[in-house]
């Protein structure tokens, strides 16, 4: 499978279809994002294990493609994208955080094991270039078990979980969609400074609400959490609510307006370019 990706990437670079390819590079057994500009580096291009490709970086608060496109306006970039990477790209494009027109995707389907590890409902991109499509996991047993509990029990569960927080901001930093330029978590009005754990529940609730119509269920927040707060559980439930209430799913269609970005009279808030 990886050979197919490398072959395609090689072809794209050689023919000039793209100027560079954003993907994962393996070096000394460790994996991180890398921008491949030369065909002879492609031996180190890998697709697994999963690693966040686009994070929004502090203090610049922009995703990596935005920054690359800012430095190189006309560059055509290929991206080796899993289902969740593609959803992130769509949601970012919708919010003017990158220019999809200059981006070509090499869509990679996740394996059965990878899908299970993320309990991912949609472990494949729209156009699968490499790999076999496997069915998603429709529901998470942990979530169903939690929902069967009484409200006070659930509250106690979350209180305990959030009390472990060490305010590393890892959930925010690892999130591809946490893109506010003036992060509310860094405003004294909302969150008191210097506390450990940060105020329960406001610190986390701000993020929950902000991500309600953006979260693409990649799970990077939970993966980045040093104390194991089951953040993906909350976001899965939020996505479920947004789907029920607004019939909206983040990361599916670039033309579909996010419900929380519209005014109350149902006209889109975003200006047309």
């Amino acid at each position, binding site marked *: 499978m990886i050979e197919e990706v490398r072959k395609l990437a090689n072809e794209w670079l050689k023919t000039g279809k793209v*100027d*560079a390819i*954003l993907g994962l*590079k393996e*070096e*000394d*057994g*460790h*994996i*991180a*994002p*890398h*921008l491949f*500009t030369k065909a002879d580096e492609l031996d180190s291009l890998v697709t697994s*294990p999963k*690693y*966040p490709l686009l*994070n929004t*970086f*502090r*203090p*610049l608060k922009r995703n*990596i493609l935005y*920054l*690359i496109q800012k*430095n*190189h306006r006309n*560059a055509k970039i290929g991206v080796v994208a899993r289902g969740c990477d593609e959803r992130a790209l769509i949601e970012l494009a919708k919010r003017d955080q990158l220019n999809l027109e200059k981006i070509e995707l090499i869509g990679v389907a996740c394996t059965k094991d990878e899908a299970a590890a993320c309990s991912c409902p949609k472990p494949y991109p729209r156009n699968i270039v490499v790999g076999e499509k496997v069915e998603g996991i429709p529901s998470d047993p942990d979530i169903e078990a939690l929902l069967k509990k009484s409200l006070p029990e659930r509250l106690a569960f979350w209180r305990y979980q959030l*009390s*472990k927080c*060490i*305010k*590393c*901001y*890892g959930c925010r*930093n*690892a999130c591809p969609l946490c893109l506010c330029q003036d992060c509310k978590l*860094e405003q004294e009005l909302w969150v008191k*400074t*210097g506390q*450990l*754990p940060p105020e329960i529940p406001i610190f986390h609730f701000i993020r929950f609400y902000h991500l309600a119509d953006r979260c693409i269920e990649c799970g990077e927040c939970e*993966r*980045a*959490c*040093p*104390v*194991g707060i089951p953040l993906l559980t909350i976001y899965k439930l939020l996505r479920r609510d947004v789907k029920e209430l607004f019939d909206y799913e983040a990361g599916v269609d670039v033309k579909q307006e996010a419900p929380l970005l519209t005014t109350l009279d149902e006209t889109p808030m975003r200006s047309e370019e």
Partner: protein
Amino acid sequence: MEYKNVLTTCPYCGAGCNLYLQVLDGELIGVLPCQSHVVSQGKLCIKGWTANEFITHKDRLTKPLVKRNGKFIEVSWEEALDVIVEKFKHYKEKYGPDVFGILASAKCTNEENFLMMKFARAVIGTNNVDHCARLCHASTVVGLGKAFGSGAMTNSIEELENADCILVTGSNTTEQHPLVARYIMRAKEKGARLIVVDSRAIPLTRFADYHLRQRPGTDVAWINGFMNVILNEGLADQEFIKERTEGFEGLAKTIEKYTPECVEKITGIPKDDLINATRTYARAERASIVYSMGITQHTTGVDNVVSCANLAMLTGNVGKQSTGVNPLRGQVNVQGACDVGALPNVYSGYQSVTDENIRAKFEKAWNTKLPAKPGLTVVEMTNEAAKGNIKVMYIMGENPMLSDPDISHVREGLENLEFLVVQDIFLTETAELADVVLPATSYAEKDGTFTSTDRRVQRVRKAIDPIGESRPDWQIICELARRMGSKEFEYPSPADVMNEIALLTPIYGGIVYERIQKVGLQWPCASKEHPGTPYLHKEKFTRGKGMFFGIEFKEPAELPDEEYPLILTTGRIIFHYHTGTMTRRTALLNREVPTGYVEINPMDAKKLNIINGEMVLVQSRRGEIKIKALITNMVPEGVIFIPFHFAECAANVLTNPALDPVAKIPEFKACAANVKKNNVICRYVKNKYYFQ
């Protein structure tokens, strides 16, 4: 068009998390976690996530500075080095090598610390070389050295996860080693019991089965109390004691009188809590002790450490996975700086300078005569400087003007020097007193290795070119040595320095860069084939048998009295790091806690008529600071706490420089103090009160 991620080791605490520095078109833009690293596993703390920011801060030193008529002027490297070499040669000739004091740095790489100690010994000719390990874990190096034969963390960080019981004392792990606390939390969630012995209600106490709040400075007493209960209730591991240890009779005799009742009187820990916590620890299959500076920074620091070792050996909790005595080292490379011999009494690998054979080995390798007399420690150096016996100091990456006890006295010492060279990335409080300041590079601009708290030697990799005209410390030291006339400092790269370390240092014998590209190696690692050592003392202790020492309780050097009725203890907080030179230049960290504060118990605050947020005066026999009051139950009645990061309200103006007699570590964790209402002027302008 270039976007790359460079794997390196986080420059903050001793957990040694690996992280990626993100470089876009030559510019450092951020940090990414490394999912395959054994400790960090794709997670970081707030300091790790922001570890790129200070590197490109506008305050970075970019040119050498020489002080003329009280003012710094920028000069060329050529000129700065000429000045230094001329002065060094002059003072060495005039007064001999022992008027030099040299400070290496726990922030610099192993290679740089090795070169610095080689410079001190082989070029200057003095053993007066030390670094801030003296201030944090000197008592660990001595104490565990005495008891086990090796003064380092016995087990690995990730092993904590599988312990059945973890006893945390004198370590606010969540704040000082957040990614180590992760493993404690994981163990807890898997069913382990957690015992916290700490005067302060640190974040871990929220999850603890027992929180015992001892009066600061009474650690030997409660540990003896634990052992008293263990022996009385037949919970000791008799087989382990018989097979693996010596000196048990002496210990048994000493702890007879430390009954729970007696210990309650000394420490304030209720006897039933002590008994229950002891049973929990002693009955666990795999019990780990985790400690840090609450244990070491006392005039009884070595006694405290040895007591921890006693307790672990008494229950057979050494030499097995997920057990042991685990000192958490504060700085990223404080373990390594000790390992490679930046200490006044040993060369690399803790090989004594007084041992003729060892000295001969180093003399042969370095082609020069070496001094035999052990040198001065950090605090002794500034003391001797004040007396005029130390005349020249060369300080690399350390800031004693904030980190050492009794700062006024440190200033007196440094100002009394005839010549001071400071090599750093920022103009620190110490650098301001220097005659020459050399601009060094940060960890992101050089190659090398750091050794984390669990003895893991890991790579530091260059991500960007040096900022301005700054140079890596290893290059500066080599250049100075060459100009001083030495031919023994010709290294093409840090890898070649490591090869020399490996050659001369048995515990690092098998460490070469090729072997640590992927995963770090844990010493002892004797040969190129040796796989490294995840936990120590497996079949036998490094010294053969583990040694018990009966230790009597001694009070701290200074006790509260009528004039100074409170006990002051100091420490660190999660958002800052040591003297703040890096974290206070990181926006996210600085906004969390922009300045210092003194924690005061609500009962004490009521007595003193102090409200939360009020500016107060804190006084001790050494001095006085003005600082904001934080009224909190974090501290018990009678105890106040001040984080030491902040120069404008520096806790170390107040602390007691009294030293442990052997380890020479100062008593940062207990001194007598007093809190007074500040004479506040209150103005009422436009419907608002303003306090001055």
